[in-house]
């Protein structure tokens, strides 16, 4: 750009000042030379000199040049009139000369103007173009010309760009290499996508088109496609991610349009046994089991209109090989490629169903085995117990001495215990099968505790206190909860040594809305590691071996836990080794539905 100076409030460039000075001095010289030549009568040969300032002036400043030509013509005319008057021939010729000045100026101005406007138009297009334009030398790659768009795009100034080579604009050597390849391959290229490097080193996606304007000059147009490209990349990435998810999904995914399969993922392809090609365009209903077809059709028809709410159904499918598979599926209405479609997610539940049936069968079988075993174990106990009873009831008849009778009593006790173990084993097996229903009734807590304590004779075993309000009632299955509390008390007695201190207390938890019955003892306690095990079948606390072998089996706590769970409650244990344990039964104030109680 030119340097400028401030003259009368206007910016005037040095070039203009020089030009104006040259033009004006030339014009002045011409006038002076003309005046001298006229005065000395040397002829009109110097009039042609006027063309220099006129053409020069009109060329650079068409409009002002016209004024200049007018001024020059006037000056010439005045001088000529002064010297040649009244010779009519000379007057006519000088007038013609002056008019010729103006005509020449007009012609020059006209063409200059024309050239200038087209150049201005071109320049404005070039400058204001939304496309970046770079002109570079094909041999040196030196940048010859750029427009503002390029400057804005890359963040360089015009000077900075002019000092660079075109090839240095590329983001990576690889992109440079591809450019060279393309440049060498053919003359004109359109829509060559590549990345430029901005001034701040950020890559910028652009499309280049170029053509050779001269032997060595190449004009390149540059379009910024960065945002589009980034959006495209993001879309591609999300599409790739989506594809990856669908393709690797263990769930079968199918897209239906008018019941025809538009897309199926590998999981579904595998399930169906068909190839993807066979599936595409296939009527989905033909894959559905005959008996489920009507139901399935109703399902997709109603839910199709309902929109986003997925709903799960189970349905049988027929594979290519004719096998029947069971699938749980849900639908979502989607827009696929601009058209409403149905997205089906499908999980093969055949194996789960089979497993469920097998577990059911196993449970029934186990229950059957336990029942039979119990029957077989109990039957021989009957004669033993019966004869023992007979001998001890009537010792004289059978000649039984006092000493023998004591021995027989112990035998009877063992039979009792054996029988109890079998009963508990059975109880547990029935509980596992979920076959025992609960019978709820309103039970007074205090009465319940007192009855259990007196029936079990626990008061005689140590210092036993019952702390329960008189009026409180619970809605429970009395017989089941009695069994639970009784086994807790039995444990409290059996896992402690005299002097025993046992406290049975009731509290109501407002926060939980639960009844709490605690049985606290001063016994051997339970270690942390044993806490989890004591509710497992046949896990007698190891501490048990330290005291007299109790009349107790390892199943009572397992049964207690199950009973309490059936009531919707739980058992918690606090224990310190050698100081004692507290078992707390938590029972909800409002029991779960009695009908459901037995299903747990």
């Amino acid at each position, binding site marked *: 750009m030119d340097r400028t100076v401030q003259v009368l409030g206007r910016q005037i460039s040095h070039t203009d000042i020089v030009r104006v000075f040259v033009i004006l001095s030339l014009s002045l010289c011409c006038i002076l030379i003309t005046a001298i030549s006229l005065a000395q009568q040397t002829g009109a040969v110097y009039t042609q000199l006027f063309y220099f300032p006129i053409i020069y002036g009109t060329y650079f400043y068409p409009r002002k040049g016209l004024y200049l030509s007018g001024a020059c013509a006037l000056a010439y005319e005045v001088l000529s009139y002064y010297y040649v008057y009244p010779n009519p021939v000379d007057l006519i010729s000088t007038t013609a000369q002056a008019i010729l000045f103006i005509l020449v100026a007009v012609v020059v101005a006209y063409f200059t103007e024309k050239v200038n406007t087209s150049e201005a138009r071109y320049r404005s297009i070039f400058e204001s173009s939304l496309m970046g334009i770079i002109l570079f030398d094909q041999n040196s790659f030196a940048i010859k010309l750029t427009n503002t768009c390029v400057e804005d795009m890359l963040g360089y100034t015009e000077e900075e760009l002019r000092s660079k080579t075109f090839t240095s604009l590329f983001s990576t050597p690889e992109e440079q290499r591809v450019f060279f390849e393309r440049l060498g391959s053919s003359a004109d290229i359109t829509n060559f996508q590549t990345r430029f490097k901005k001034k701040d080193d950020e890559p910028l996606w652009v499309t280049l088109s170029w053509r050779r304007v001269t032997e060595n000059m190449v004009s390149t147009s540059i379009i910024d496609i960065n945002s589009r490209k980034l959006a495209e990349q993001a879309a591609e990435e999300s599409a790739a991610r989506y594809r990856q998810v669908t393709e690797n999904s263990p769930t079968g995914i199918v897209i239906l349009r008018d019941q025809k399969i538009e897309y199926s993922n590998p999981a579904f392809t595998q399930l169906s046994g068909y190839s993807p090609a066979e599936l595409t365009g296939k009527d989905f209903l033909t894959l559905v089991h005959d008996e489920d077809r009507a139901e399935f059709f109703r399902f997709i028809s109603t839910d199709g209109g309902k929109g986003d709410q997925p709903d799960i159904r189970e349905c049988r499918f027929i594979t290519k090989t004719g096998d029947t598979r069971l699938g749980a599926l849900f639908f979502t209405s989607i827009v696929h490629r601009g058209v409403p479609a149905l997205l089906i997610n499908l999980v093969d539940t055949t194996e789960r169903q089979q497993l469920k049936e097998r577990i059911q069968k196993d449970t029934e079988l186990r229950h059957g085995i*336990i*029942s039979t075993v*119990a*029957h*077989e*174990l*109990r*039957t*021989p*106990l*009957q*004669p*033993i*117990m*019966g*004869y023992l*009873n*007979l001998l001890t*009831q*009537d010792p004289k008849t059978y000649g039984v001495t006092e000493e023998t009778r004591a021995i027989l009593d112990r035998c009877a006790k063992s*039979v009792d215990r054996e*029988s109890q173990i079998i009963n508990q084993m*059975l109880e547990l*097996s*029935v509980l596992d099968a979920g*076959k025992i229903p609960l019978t709820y009734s309103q039970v007074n807590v205090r009465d319940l505790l007192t009855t259990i304590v007196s029936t079990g004779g626990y008061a005689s075993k140590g210092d036993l206190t019952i702390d329960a309000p008189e009026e409180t009632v619970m809605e429970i299955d009395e017989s089941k909860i009695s069994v639970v509390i009784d086994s807790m008390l039995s444990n409290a007695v059996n896992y402690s040594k005299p002097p025993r201190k046992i406290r049975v207390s009731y509290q109501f938890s407002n926060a939980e809305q639960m009844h709490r019955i605690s049985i606290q003892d001063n016994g051997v306690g339970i270690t942390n590691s044993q806490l989890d095990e004591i509710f497992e079948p046949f896990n007698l606390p190891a501490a048990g071996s330290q005291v007299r072998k109790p009349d107790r089996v390892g199943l009572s706590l397992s049964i207690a836990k199950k009973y309490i769970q059936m009531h919707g409650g739980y058992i918690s244990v606090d224990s310190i080794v050698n100081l004692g344990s507290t078992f707390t039964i938590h029972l909800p104030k409002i029991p779960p539905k009695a009908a459901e109680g037995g299903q747990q």
Partner: protein
Amino acid sequence: MTKRILVVEDDEPILDLMDLLIRRLGYEPVLLSNGPDALRYAKNDPPALILLDIMMTPISGWEFLEKLRAEPSLKTLPVIIFSASPSVEEKMASINDPFLGVLHKPVSFVELRTGIEQALKKQD
């Protein structure tokens, strides 16, 4: 005349024991080891009470009971299920027979006495 108690039981040792126990309780035992025989006996000459085992061949205690109750005159004859099988109560609940009781094996002398007495009282 002493009341007759029919014991239907296929386990020989138990049958022997019941013979002794029932006699001791002051009743007259009739011991039969299968359902069809017992059914014929009961129809012919109804006893005061039947002690009935469940797991038997050729017919089970339940089948025996069904055939017994089919006879109008035997609908109120007290029967005590005398079984080592679990879940007898479940089946009993579904039958809902007021003249049906249960004793689980192994049963003690005292339990047997109480059971029989209660069953007989119910009929009176």
